[in-house]
């Protein structure tokens, strides 16, 4: 099969409607407050699909929810102390996913495969479909060009769409994408040479539109050098951190979590997993109060080094995908771009 196809924009909603029979559709929707967020689409006709703005949050909440029930537990007298996991929901279809967010999902796949596959994550991920949208126009804080995760993808998607005006050029990635195109082939026509040229042109133009110059590789090289960064750099950033966790929450690759029990009755409750953030002052605090990390001087250290040094050592690439969301959310100005800039300024 030709792996470059054309999908007319007029046909897109009708294709999505077909796919919604078997999948829960998640796409960027503009809500009544004017915010664009990935949301589950209940009624495609009434929803305002927004492919113009960057969704404020990533796909993370749909694969690794901010809070989820791991087990319902029951204590039944003599009988026991039983833990029952919830039933998985219907498969997910993600539409309109940008290159950075999809790259982040590939990282989540690795993290949640460590030491046994995470059953909760993979129950959602396993049968999911990812239809990405190449970024013809990067947003103000974007630096995926520097993180090498975009603006267009080379792999990882099931289908990648490139906006060519009245139509999308469709690239077929994984087997599941080929299956989708095969099953709904009347929606697609073969792409012409001119379409592929138009896509290449779009890619070149997109690359020239980045507003930020972020020297991620230079910062990584500096971190890999044995010489430690000045203490004052860490302390200065940590002082500005307001302990809100916003960076970790909007970050598509931050996966720290906590687990707590929520009692419902004397004999029943829920064991829940929730997002956590290594920037929180109590993240490493032990029962009894001792804390091996000094939040006053080291609040942001683990977050930046994990993404830009430890993950480079362990996985061969940083786990910052350059989406720029932390730049927009941090009111203390302690985002990763600030850190990268500071590291690049340090004299070796």
């Amino acid at each position, binding site marked *: 099969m030709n792996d470059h196809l054309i999908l007319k924009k007029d046909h897109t909603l009708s294709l999505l409607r077909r796919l919604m029979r078997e999948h829960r559709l998640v796409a960027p929707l503009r809500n009544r407050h004017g915010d664009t967020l990935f949301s589950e689409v209940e009624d495609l006709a009434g929803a305002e699909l927004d492919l113009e703005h960057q969704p404020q949050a990533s796909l993370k909440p749909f694969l690794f929810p901010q809070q989820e029930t*791991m*087990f319902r*537990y029951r*204590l039944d007298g003599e009988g*026991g*102390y*039983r*833990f029952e*996991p919830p039933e*998985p929901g219907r498969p997910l279809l993600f539409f309109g996913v940008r290159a950075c967010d999809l790259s982040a999902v590939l990282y989540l796949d690795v*993290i*949640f495969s*460590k*030491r*046994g*596959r*995470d*059953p909760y994550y993979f*129950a959602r991920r396993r049968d999911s479909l990812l239809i990405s949208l190449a970024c013809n126009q990067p947003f103000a804080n974007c630096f995926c060009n520097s993180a090498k995760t975009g603006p267009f993808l080379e792999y990882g998607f099931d289908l990648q769409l490139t906006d060519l005006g009245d139509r999308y050029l469709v690239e077929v990635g994984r087997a599941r994408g080929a299956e989708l195109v095969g099953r709904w082939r009347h929606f697609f026509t073969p792409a012409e040479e001119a379409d592929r040229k138009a896509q290449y042109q779009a890619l070149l133009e997109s690359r020239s539109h980045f507003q930020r110059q972020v020297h991620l590789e230079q910062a990584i090289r500096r971190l890999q050098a044995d010489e430690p960064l000045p203490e004052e750099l860490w302390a200065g950033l940590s002082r500005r951190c307001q302990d809100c966790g916003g960076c970790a929450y909007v970050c598509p690759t931050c*996966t*720290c*979590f*906590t*687990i*707590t*029990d929520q*009692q419902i009755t004397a004999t029943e*409750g829920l*064991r829940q997993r929730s997002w*956590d953030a*290594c920037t929180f002052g109590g*993240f*490493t*605090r*032990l*029962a*009894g109060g*001792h804390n*091996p*990390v000094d939040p006053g001087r*080291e609040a942001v250290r*683990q977050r930046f*080094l*994990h993404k830009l*040094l*430890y993950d480079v*050592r*362990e996985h061969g690439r940083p786990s910052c995908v350059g989406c720029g969301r932390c730049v927009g959310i941090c009111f203390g100005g302690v985002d990763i771009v600030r850190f990268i800039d500071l590291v690049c300024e340090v004299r070796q």
Partner: protein
Amino acid sequence: MTDNGNPYLPHPARILRVREENSQIKSFELAFTDPERHRAFTYRPGQFVMVSVPHGGEAPISISSSPTRPGRLTLSVRKAGRLTAALHRMAEGELVGLRGPYGRPFPVEELRGRDLIFVAGGIGLAPLASVVNLCLDRREEYGQLTVLYGSRSPADIAFRDELEGWRRAGVKCLLTVDQGGEGWTGQVGLVTTLFAQISPDPGRSSALICGPPVMFRFVAAELTRLGLSDQDIVTTLERHMKCGLGVCRHCHLGPKLVCAHGPVFTLAELRGLREAELA
């Protein structure tokens, strides 16, 4: 989702016996309610389990019994926070949940043939007890065994039955207390003061240490002074932990995770890790 596919699934275990070690520490002997699971459960000294307490969540607790005594599963727990306080209120016959065992154990195979110096403060003796008992059960495989144990006061000396048993078996057990009291004729001072009473051969000695960070720093310095190399100084670390599987990252030491890379580390491995609190 099947049982085997979910690494977070706790299995019910019954509290068979509770022993009060001191006002802060209790030892719980446990058995999985499923006899098949109990028989099949194996672990190595230094490993830990995640313990669920009804409505209280989970916490990592090291195993203090020895795998050389099959069927035994003992956890010694200091009352330190909400979960451990709830556990202390539980009685024989009640149920907890267990998953594991997790973590890198003490290198008991590599330590064969060596003289072992165990240094612990307070609850720190719990994970080391597992190794001492293993060595006693394979007595001919190990050299001289010495236990240096520090407690706050004579009343705080825990694991008395265990210590007495080790003494009878020929283990040199030296005790000290931070503050003496009426009737106490033994050593007073930090655990490092006991080093004056031993003269290990650094070429054939390894040390296993467990205690608070400040104790570890001073003990490690003392052992270094006696000529032990960083590879022969082994410790086990306690950290806040949620998953035990290397994912939640609460127990990080910068690039390393205590649950997955440890909890047992040599001093050589901890050098340069800021969160190891060596400085």
